[in-house]
């Protein structure tokens, strides 16, 4: 019984989009694997358009796969509508970026929170008001708020309600998709502190998607770095942030300020050049090669497979040489 709670294996997701009469096959996720152990927080970082949200949706069965598989508790994703699917719907929850879009404007906060209780028959109906009050308190809101409509709440308050709604059914895994990016900076910190605290107290596992590296560093046990549909590097958060091995991770860290002054002083600055390529027509071989300062002929020919590198895994042909030379200089 050592199977991880969530195990995504070689996921492939291709979107077919028609634009101006031209059909494009967008390779949103290409052979990406990611796993989350019980009670663990896994950060998923990468630039916009790298496929993080798509992978996150696939992880909880909201996005069909075109290849690979998703195992939850060692079991493949059940068919939509089956009894196993219903159970799974209680065990995984999702919180999104935009708290304004995440609550039905026509429902009171109490009604929004009662929805998961009703769907999963969580206790007798008359116990719900108390449960809702308890949930609101858990996320630091006044239980009186149950009677209000979302229109009267601030972004931070709404996001707290979304967290409460996700917690209502006591899930095993919550996918947090950029849950702080729509909030102002001080609110961001509060929400992260809240979710980290709840995570510890309740032991729920988190797949924490973000492009804020500082945030992920603060909250995640493990981190996966995604680029153009592929996982470039994954491993213990400390290791990935302190000894990044993949040129993309290094570039990302080079672009973002590091709160730790020692690391900030020591790090190299390799700016991330250019734009992320079109996912409908990704580069051959290594997908990062068009922007990689170390790219060579080999990189266009062969796709680098993830291989163990210390406690992490790295998908680069030349990570050994690169970490060797750059760290010496």
């Amino acid at each position: 019984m050592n199977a991880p709670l969530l195990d995504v294996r070689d996921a492939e997701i291709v979107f077919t989009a028609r634009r101006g009469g031209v059909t494009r096959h967008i390779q949103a996720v290409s052979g990406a694997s990611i796993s989350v152990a019980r009670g663990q927080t896994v950060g998923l970082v990468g630039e916009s358009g790298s496929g993080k949200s798509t992978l996150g949706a696939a992880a909880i069965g909201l996005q069909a796969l075109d290849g690979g598989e998703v195992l939850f508790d060692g079991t493949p994703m059940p068919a939509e509508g089956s009894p196993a699917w219903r159970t799974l719907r209680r065990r995984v929850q999702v919180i999104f970026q935009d708290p304004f879009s995440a609550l039905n404007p026509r429902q009171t906060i109490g009604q929004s929170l009662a929805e998961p209780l009703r769907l999963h028959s969580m206790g007798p109906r008359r116990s719900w008001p108390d449960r809702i009050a308890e949930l609101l308190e858990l996320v630091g809101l006044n239980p009186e708020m149950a009677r209000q409509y979302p229109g009267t709440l601030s972004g931070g308050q709404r996001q707290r309600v979304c967290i409460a709604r996700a917690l209502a059914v006591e899930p095993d895994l919550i996918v947090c998709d950029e849950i702080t990016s729509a909030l102002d900076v001080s609110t961001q910190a509060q929400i992260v502190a809240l979710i980290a605290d709840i995570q510890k107290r309740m032991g729920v596992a988190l797949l924490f998607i973000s492009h804020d590296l500082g945030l992920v560093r603060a909250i995640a046990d493990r981190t996966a770095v995604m680029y153009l549909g592929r996982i470039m590097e994954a491993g213990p958060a400390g290791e990935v942030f302190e000894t990044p091995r993949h040129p993309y991770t290094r570039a990302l860290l080079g672009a973002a300020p590091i709160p730790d002054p020692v690391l900030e002083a020591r790090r190299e600055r390799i700016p991330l050049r250019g734009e992320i390529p079109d996912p409908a027509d990704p580069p051959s071989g290594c997908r990062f090669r068009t922007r990689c300062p170390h790219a060579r002929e080999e990189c266009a020919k062969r796709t680098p497979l993830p291989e163990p590198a210390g406690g992490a895994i790295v998908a680069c042909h030349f990570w050994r040489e690169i970490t060797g030379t750059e760290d010496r200089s």
Partner: protein
Amino acid sequence: MTRLLPALRILAIIWVVITVVFVTLRLTPGDPAELLLGPTAGRQDVQERLADIRAQYGLDQPIPVQYAIFVGNVLQGDLGESNRSARPVISMIAAAAPVTIWLIVLSVGTAIPISIFLGMIAAARRGRTLDRGIRSLATLCMAVPSFWLGLLFLQWFASGLGWFPSRGYVAPLTDPGGFMMHMALPVITLAIFLVGTLTRFVYTETADTLQRDYITVSRAMGLASRTILFRFAAKNSLTPLIIVVGVEIGTLIGGAVIVEEVFGLPGLGRLLLGAVMSRDYPVVQGTILVITVAVILINIAAEMLYRYITPQARS
């Protein structure tokens, strides 16, 4: 004061409308007295009769005086008498109004369920062939001129196939079957136009709602897609439909005028058109006044109904 303001605004709108109608009528060429007398009007010996007619209807007065009399009468609830038949305008309107009301109510009643059905299906199948088909159809419905469509229907189903009577009207209480037969083609003609507008509206609203994160969250929590479409998307998209129908009522009355003319229905539209042709000033003024008041009242009612059924709009 704040409660009084909307009432004042409504009175101002009504005043502007009737004044514009009054002025436009006097600026339009064509003398009501001459039109009343017919082709003989140009001859010398009828000048006296013309003067009589003008005096009888107050048309010999200077225009500002006519205006003052008109407004004064309106304020007393008197819309005057027809220049042609001498019947009280109010009773002419009372006789014609039910026809128009039936036409509009039946058209709206037909168009709403069809639009909801088409709009929601298109939104649920967004980007697929069915969606594109429905939306093209809606655009077509809006683009086709009602009078042309009406004439086409008359040609095909009334004259050609003989399924429906071609023109005229029977009151529903006199002969319910005949009423339905006479109303069928006009109602379909007007409903088609309305289906175009309303389907597009339902589509936009539903597609927008379906994109909201709370829909995805509900799906993640285990709510079936069908339930989501009917429970959330329907509720959230359909309530603004009330407002749209309220706003469209003006356009709809415009459409009704055309449809009544094409199908020979003795409604307000025909009354108005006939009165404009014969420069029957009191009838034109009275009909427009009544229509304006009706449109305003319907808009207010729609607004109130919307507020009543959307609790979050009240706070």
